[in-house]
């Protein structure tokens, strides 16, 4: 039995696919999401074996979503689309599985056989090359969940990102929002710079660096927020800013 999440912005499309999956008796649909940002959260918390992912969704597309997943906990991704010539060509070029709407149960069964085999053999569901070929290398914006709302925050507005026990938080001049992306993903896919084990800083929003004792430092951002800099990262930070 596979665990799966269905992500599609259309209610009926989600329901239809969920019912087809349940009927197959091979899959247990553990959750549904009506947008990619919710979907990202569910993937991170539920860690399903497979994700059935619509491509065209508001705010964040299915393809953008997989670029934000942590490669280490990457589930098997099956794209589901009504008609998207460019995406379909990209999937075929990179040997990624996809289903066409309306979904044909026989075709779905083939996919499920393959997914079961991958799970049984404990293979990695996707190679990094496949993911890289499909997704943009650099993120221009970060999807976030605020209080009862979803926000897409442009990178240049972010002053810093930090993690604590409750998750990853994106700090702009005016607000804080939670992100489902890990610090590691953000460090790799954006030009935010690591300045502390728990902090990334946007070098463009540094107002000043106060040097403290013991080789520690503190960054003051343009909006006056304090960001700790650990000994280990101070050198890199200075180097990036052209201070030797």
């Amino acid at each position, binding site marked *: 039995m596979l665990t799966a999440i269905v992500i599609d912005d259309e209610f009926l499309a989600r329901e239809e696919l969920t019912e087809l999956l349940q009927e197959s008796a091979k899959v247990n649909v553990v959750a549904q999401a009506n947008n990619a940002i919710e979907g990202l959260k569910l993937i991170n918390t539920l860690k399903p074996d497979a994700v059935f992912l619509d491509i065209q969704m508001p705010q964040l597309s299915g393809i953008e979503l997989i670029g934000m997943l942590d490669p280490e906990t990457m589930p098997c991704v099956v794209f589901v689309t*009504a008609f998207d010539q460019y995406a379909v060509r990209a999937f075929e070029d990179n040997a990624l599985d996809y289903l066409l709407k309306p979904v044909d149960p026989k075709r779905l069964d083939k996919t499920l056989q393959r997914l079961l085999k991958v799970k049984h053999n404990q293979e990695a569901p996707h190679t990094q090359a496949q993911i890289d070929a499909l997704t943009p290398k650099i993120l221009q914006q970060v999807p976030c969940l605020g209080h009862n709302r979803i926000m897409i925050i442009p990178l240049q507005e972010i002053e810093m990102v930090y993690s604590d026990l409750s998750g990853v938080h994106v700090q702009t001049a005016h607000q804080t929002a939670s992100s489902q992306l890990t610090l590691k993903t953000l460090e790799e896919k954006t030009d935010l710079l690591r300045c502390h084990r728990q902090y990334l800083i946007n070098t463009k929003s540094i107002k000043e660096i106060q040097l403290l004792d013991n080789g520690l430092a503190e960054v003051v951002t343009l909006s006056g927020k304090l960001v700790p800099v650990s000994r280990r990262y101070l050198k890199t930070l200075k180097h990036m800013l052209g201070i030797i």
Partner: protein
Amino acid sequence: MHLVPSLLQQMCVYLVLAYMLSKTPIFLPLLNISSQRSHKFSCYVLFSLFCILGTYFGLNINDAIANTRAIGAVIGGLLGGPVVGFAVGLTGGIHRYTLGGFTDVACAISTTMEGLIGGLLHLYLVRKDKSYLLFNPLIVLAITFVAEVSQMLIILAVAKPFDRAYTLVSEIAAPMIIANCVGAALFVSILQDKKTIFERYSAVFSRRALTIAERSVGIWSTGFDGSSAEKVARIIYEETNVGAVAITDTENTLAFIGIGEDHHKPNTPISSKYTRQAMEQNRIIYLGARESPYHCSISDNCKLGTVLVIPLRAGKKVVGTIKLYEPKRKLLSNINRSMGEGIGQLLSSQILYGDFQQQQTLLTQAEIKLLHAQVNPHFLFNALNTISAVIRRDPNKARELIQHLSHFFRSNLKQNIETVAFKDELAHVNAYLTIEKARFTDRLTVEIDIHEALQERLLPSFTLQPLVENAIKHGISTMLEGGRVRIYSERNGVGYNIVVEDNAGQFVPALGDKQGLGMEIVAKRLVHFFGDKAALQTECEAGKSTRMRFLVPDQVSS
């Protein structure tokens, strides 16, 4: 020296005669440096007469004649070429010889010589392509001077006894040189005046060109073919009074009107190599001069003797030629090169415009077809997916959706409908929106409020539905929830504004992509049908709303 006034008097009589003759058609061939044999012959006769006249008007001096014969000989040669010059000189010389006297031989030789000198200058200037200098009085003055000086030298050399010859020459040299040089120069300036008057005719030609332009407007809009070519050829034939007019495309003669209609038949392949040459080199070819005489390529009995072949262009591409003909006998040609160029340019731009009009019609048809074909496949497959899900839970609702989908496709497939009544277009929009509402469930609400007065009004097909589709595709589908589309009419002073509004506010001016093309066609069709005031307008408040509106005016200006 007393001879100078007497000879000048003679010269005046002589010039008055020349002036009077210049008023008659006999003179006209002289004005064009023509190579036709008949023109050469009339040139010979005319100047031989002037030569003989010069001798008769001469003054008897010491058994010799002081005269203005040289004028005829030199100008004869100058305008007729070396052969004519030689013949005129010889004729004048022989005539002088018959009058006797001790200089008879010398005068015969020298007159022939003078004709030849004029002829050689003609040859030189024509070869150098400077034949316009033949009518320059100063050049003529100079060459007559040369001719007269050589005459004096010949008299000294040939006439016997030398003493008498010497006395004669010293007496007549100066008066004769002066009288002949001035006389020849004035003679030519009479010709030149005549030529100027003749060239004013081209003003008349321009007026004709304008008439042709006026009469031939719009004829090519059906395309460059036999029937339009015949109409245009007839207009040009009537307006220019040329012998015949032909129009060809790149392969065939499309129309031929005028002299030679009996053997120049329309719809026959082009037989003249000059026509092909004119098209290949994209230049006007004139046939009728000595270097390039015109011979009809079809019949030896053809009466046509001159032709101007003018290439016709549509843009840069040569699409055919127009040919103007004159018959062989005709002295005064109606054909004039710049007139030909004018007609060529005129017809070329008309053909281009006709082409453009034709393509525009085709384009509108193509655009409708494109819109028919532009049923968004994404919409289609999503609709089918939605219906597939609905079947499971509510078969009746599914059946209803299939009805709407059928309605949508049926109205999309109605071929070649230019206009549609508002109520029908609204039904089409409604079918479309019913499917989209099912698909987006609670994410989409729709409000339609179009004034009753508009229901029967016509609007161009494929204008309202694409705007609604655009609002869904680029507006509502980017929203997580709470999408709203409003379609309503607003009364204003000159008609009703039709507004399609979404609350996404995601409008980005298109950069020539597919979406941009669709909206561009909609905008064009609206303006085309309702006039400039109906131009599609877009307002966007980012994140709040996008409104696309167009005017349905109370009165449609065509």
